[in-house]
């Protein structure tokens, strides 16, 4: 069952989100990941201020890695923009499955603009886990508290990574890059209480290498559509026969 929490005011819910973020596994993971991205930005000749701005406006580690590499290597703008956009497709179904949880009878679109921009793997997973136990009218504040904490941690550790860059041995740089897939895998498994989520996870892990091997284009998008639809269909069938 989801843990439930009662907040008297929006600021209490915001602080609740801050506390949740600090206790999340994504808190240390965010530090490590952005130390790695900071080092990357340093090596490709960008400034720490540019990196901070990119963390705030892009707010997606895989897209930032592609962007920094593209600028550093002088890749074509069109190719880089396509690569970033393909890496970001996940944000679409994430926003669609998250934002309806935040919307109550009195919610206007402008209240959802900030949570929509904050949508990221870390915030999505922690929100899906804790929002069901929180009253409708406090959910946006909780989400914003969660996200502001994650984002400030990322910005701070981006700076730290930038200045540490020179002394980072290759194995440690590799380990920082490994943090993203490892933590995504373990937290998805940890959050997957429903059979549908577990199925989608396993199907995605198997389908991607298969589609890459078969050399199908847009492999991530097809992994999502095929794996997600299969998991959803099996879930519906089990519900129907119960």
């Amino acid at each position: 069952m989801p843990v439930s929490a009662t907040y008297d005011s929006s600021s209490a819910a915001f602080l609740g989100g801050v506390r949740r973020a600090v206790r999340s596994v994504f808190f240390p993971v965010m530090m490590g990941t952005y130390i790695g991205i900071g080092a990357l930005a340093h090596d490709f000749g960008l400034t720490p201020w540019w990196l901070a701005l990119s963390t705030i406006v892009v707010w997606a580690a895989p897209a930032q890695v592609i962007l920094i590499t593209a600028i550093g290597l002088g890749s074509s703008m069109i190719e880089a923009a396509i690569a970033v956009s393909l890496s970001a497709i996940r944000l679409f179904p994430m926003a669609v499955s998250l934002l309806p949880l935040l919307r109550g009878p009195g919610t206007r679109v402008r209240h959802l603009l900030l949570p929509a921009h904050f949508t990221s793997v870390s915030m999505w997973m922690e929100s899906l886990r804790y929002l069901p136990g929180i009253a409708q009218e406090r959910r946006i504040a909780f989400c914003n508290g969660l996200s502001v904490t994650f984002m400030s941690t990322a910005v701070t550790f981006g700076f730290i990574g930038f200045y540490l860059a020179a002394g980072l041995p290759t194995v440690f740089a590799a380990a920082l890059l490994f943090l993203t897939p490892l933590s995504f895998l373990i937290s998805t498994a940890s959050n997957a209480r429903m059979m549908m989520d577990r199925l989608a996870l396993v199907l995605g892990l198997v389908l991607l290498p298969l589609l890459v091997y078969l050399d199908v284009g847009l492999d991530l998008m097809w992994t999502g559509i095929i794996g997600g639809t299969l998991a959803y269909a099996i879930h519906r069938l089990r519900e129907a026969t119960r």
Partner: protein
Amino acid sequence: MNPVIAEFWPYLMLVIVGYLPNEVWRVLGLVLARGLNEDSEIVMWSRAVATAILAGVIAKLILFSSGALDTIPIWVRVAATLCGFLGFLLIKRSALAGVVIGLSTLVLGGYLTTP
């Protein structure tokens, strides 16, 4: 390149290559989510699709690594992932324990296999 353009080039790239192609998916999600109720079937299906894409991203980053991670042999990366996952299952389902074990395995394997 004109020095003024050279100065602002990374910022221009940030907006055109980073911000816009990334943010478009969040905006589309916001638009589609407008008419949806939290118990609707599309929300459920989107959650399954998001989870499967995320699993795909995980597989891609581990199996087809780039940058410094590429210097670690693939079997070390896979073994470290399995150790981390096992650690998570065995140690009270703690995500942090899993991450620490997986990461330590990778660093150890990296030092043992790279000259």
